[in-house]
């Protein structure tokens, strides 16, 4: 249906254009207007430049203001507030330059349209002007970069010691989540250990992995630092948590990390937005194949007490599936079994 409409539209457009073309070609031959420069068409184009300027400005401001709440995603992390602020400061600066330069561009186009009686002024250079418009952008950019750099330095600084660790592993086409358990240390992993029962390749001969547990969603406490340890098991992926202003590639063979402090629980955000179904989400932003567009995981931000309660209720890998430790040497196996019994 759409196809037919589009096809008809194109045919109509083409035939209209063809007729316009023939008619204007004949008229211009009859008039002999091709020699003149200050023609009506020159004037029309000059006016259209102004129309474009004014129309474009109105459309831009109207839509930007009307839709603001729609495209401005709510922010729920400490550093996100800072980067958002940087974003809007940069927007103000560039927006001003954008409007100013466009006014000059189109106004000059209109103002200095061809006139047979006039002559352009011969104005080949002015070093003072060049120096000014080299230095001014340089200074403005330096300020913007410097504030950006300070934020970047803080964001990428090592995570605080007490940050809650969550491992996120990307694969085609989903994320696997692993928590380090009570010791807050993730057990080792090796991609060669991956199989149907151990999809993350966790090395259970490492004692730190005994209390590691899986989760269906990322549950994190509000107001406390959280460290995402990110890896991939097949191709590149990228962890994107839009409300946290968080993005980091997941690279096979090279673990990456990103830490942040969530500032609003899911419940608080739901109340704020008046949307009972709101969830924080994780998406993939590095093209990874057929299912790239569907790698969704939910992040649930809860109050710290609730978080601790949730953690204590989780069952570790070896509790869920004691087979995982069946191949371990006897001393390690004993330790692991003690661990299982303790947590019961």
């Amino acid at each position, binding site marked *: *249906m*759409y196809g037919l409409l589009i096809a008809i539209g194109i045919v109509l*457009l083409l035939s209209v*254009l063809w007729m316009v073309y023939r008619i204007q070609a004949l008229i*211009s031959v009859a008039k002999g207007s091709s020699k003149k420069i200050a023609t009506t*068409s*020159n004037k029309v184009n000059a006016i259209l430049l102004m129309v474009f300027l004014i129309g*474009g400005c109105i459309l831009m401001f109207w839509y*930007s203001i009307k839709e603001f709440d*729609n495209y401005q*995603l709510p922010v729920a992390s400490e550093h*996100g507030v800072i*980067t958002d602020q*940087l974003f809007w400061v940069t*927007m103000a*600066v*560039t927006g001003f*330059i954008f409007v100013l*330069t*466009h006014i*000059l561009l189109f106004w*000059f186009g209109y103002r*200095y349209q*061809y006139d047979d009686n006039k002559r*352009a*002024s011969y*104005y*080949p*250079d*002015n070093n003072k*002007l060049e120096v000014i418009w080299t230095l001014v*952008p*340089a200074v403005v*950019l330096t300020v*913007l*970069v410097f504030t*950006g750099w300070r934020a*970047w*330095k803080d964001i*990428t600084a090592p995570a605080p010691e007490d940050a809650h660790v969550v491992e996120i592993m990307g*694969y*085609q086409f989903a994320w696997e989540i692993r928590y380090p358990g009570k010791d807050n240390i993730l057990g080792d992993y090796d991609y060669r250990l991956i199989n149907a029962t151990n999809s993350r390749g966790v090395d259970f001969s490492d004692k730190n992995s005994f209390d590691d547990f899986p989760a269906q969603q990322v549950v994190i406490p509000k107001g406390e630092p959280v460290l995402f340890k990110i890896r991939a*098991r*097949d*191709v*590149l992926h990228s962890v*994107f948590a*839009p409300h946290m202003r968080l993005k*980091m*590639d997941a*690279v*096979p063979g090279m673990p990456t990390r990103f830490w942040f402090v969530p500032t609003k629980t899911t419940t608080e955000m739901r109340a704020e937005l008046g949307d009972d179904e709101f969830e924080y989400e994780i*998406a993939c*932003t590095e093209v*990874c*194949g*057929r299912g*790239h*567009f569907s790698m*969704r995981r939910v992040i649930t931000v809860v109050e710290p007490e609730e978080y601790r309660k949730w953690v204590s209720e989780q069952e570790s890998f070896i509790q869920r599936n004691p087979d995982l430790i069946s191949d371990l040497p006897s001393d390690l196996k004993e330790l692991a079994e003690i661990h299982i019994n303790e947590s019961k």
Partner: protein
Amino acid sequence: MAVANVSSHDVEHHEHEHHDSFITKYIFSTDHKMIGKQFLVTGIFWALIGGFLSIVFRLQLGFPDMNLEFLRPIFGGWIDETGKLDPNFYLALVTMHGTIMVFFVLTAGLSGTFSNFLIPLQIGARDMASGFMNMLSYWFFFLSSVIMFTSLFLEKGPAGGGWVVYPPLSALEQAIPGSGLGMTLWLIAMTCFIASSLLGGINYITTVINLRTKGMSFARLPLTIWSFFLTAIIGLLSFPVLFSAALLLVFDRSFGTSFYLSDIYIGGEALPNTGGSAVLYQHLFWFLGHPEVYIVLLPALGITSEIIATNSRKPIFGYKAMVISMLGITILSFVVWAHHMFVSGMNPFLGSIFMFLTLIIAVPSAVKVFNYLTTLWRGNLRFTPAMLFSIGLVSVFISGGLTGIFLGNSAIDIQLHDTYFVVAHFHLVMGSASFFGLVAGVYHWFPKMFGRMMDEKLGHIHFWITFVGIYMVFFPMHYIGIAGFPRRYYTWTEFSFSDMYTDLNMFVSAAAIITFAGQMIIVFNFFYSMFFGRKASLNPWKSNTLEWTTPLHPQHGNWPGEIPTVYRWPYDYSKPGSKEDFIPQTVPLSATPESNLPHEEKLVNLEKEIIAEEGQILVANESKEES
């Protein structure tokens, strides 16, 4: 003496050229003008293919529920039983659109066309330094085109990992079907393409350095030539790095090496590769990839400089500043590549360094914009289609350039990276700006290429559809990007944060379709005017540069007699005192005492001496020939 002998030999040589057969004239031609036209026509072909692919995936994005059954005759099994586009093929479309537009249209179609066509004509040379290598350059490009085109028809589809073809996705056939034969052909095609670019680039550089006519010092080169020259240098230094990246990828794919592969478990098995680094590929790729942005942009800026000056009837403002800023861009373009990789997992300290370097490169770009604006100020503007597209270029260059300030700032880039904000940014600053430069160049030099005029009214209509259309397509993408919509998504409805803006996406798609349809106007105008256009006059735009001193249909060798000597820079428009509002480069300063500036008066004496000396040589030469 030697000089005169060479040129008289050239004249004789030129007379023999009339026996060109169809094959040597139109196919295996060594004439730079014909090679330029070959690049142009191939570029137009690719632009239509690349544009069409984008329309198909825009249909998917804007009208996700649409039944695409009508595309089955073209895409066959890629349209499933319910009339939906296959997600793998969607990725292949995105990949091929990017590859085609960046390399085949905006590199070969722009640089290939205008460097070839204009360098000898504007510097006053009979041809490129090596006509044969130049021919080879086109035919490598042609071979590359054939291979890339073939890959579109493979059973498993063409390459599908995005135009950057990051491994491991591009290295492992298990990861995506496009990484099979499609990717192999992609790599072979790109290798041929790189060979073509290098052959062309060496030629452009050599020609500009060695074959400038008498008096054509570097300070008198039109800005077009400066831009082609610097573009060729960037290409020569960066394309080999892409070649090395591609070569290592070939090794990883076919010979079991682990340059980029490490710790991979896929398709139910752990691969033996360890120790490689996927990020290494990204560094190598972007070491070309970023300069590539300037490879497509600089020629467009050069073309625009020339067209804006000519049609403002004013010298380009700040010629020296323009050259210096292009030099600055050339050098800086090599040290900003990692700003594409802020969140790739690379050391954040490197991110800081590249953020500073990236924002420095914004300064010369800003200088160029202000110089364009000042050139327009108090000009006498003729809105030819070429001029309108040049003004349009300045506009999209500003719009796209400013969003670069967001993306170059690593703290802000965390959120915007790989969202539609990036798509909007580079489609404006790189895609549209270069495309506008290409189109402006076609409108401006068409009379020189084919001896006929393109239709001006159609050009105006084409401009307004394209200019408004481009903004309608790419401006809304900023909003979509700020909202966080990721790139290369088959559909956004899987996520609640991006499950909106169906209306805006529909609008963008509709605008894209109209804009693409509007391009048929220039295709028609181009081919129709080639045969039936109005006959052009020798210098239709009253321009100063040398190409307009050639005959209407210059033969191989460009000028029938001596190559003209150059006496002045190319921007003497509306010089006070002179009767006409332009003084071609071939007019001696001594012939225009009424308009010379004080410092030029001193040059007049020098010039008289040279002319006298030349006269003597000519006389001596003639008497020798007579005897």
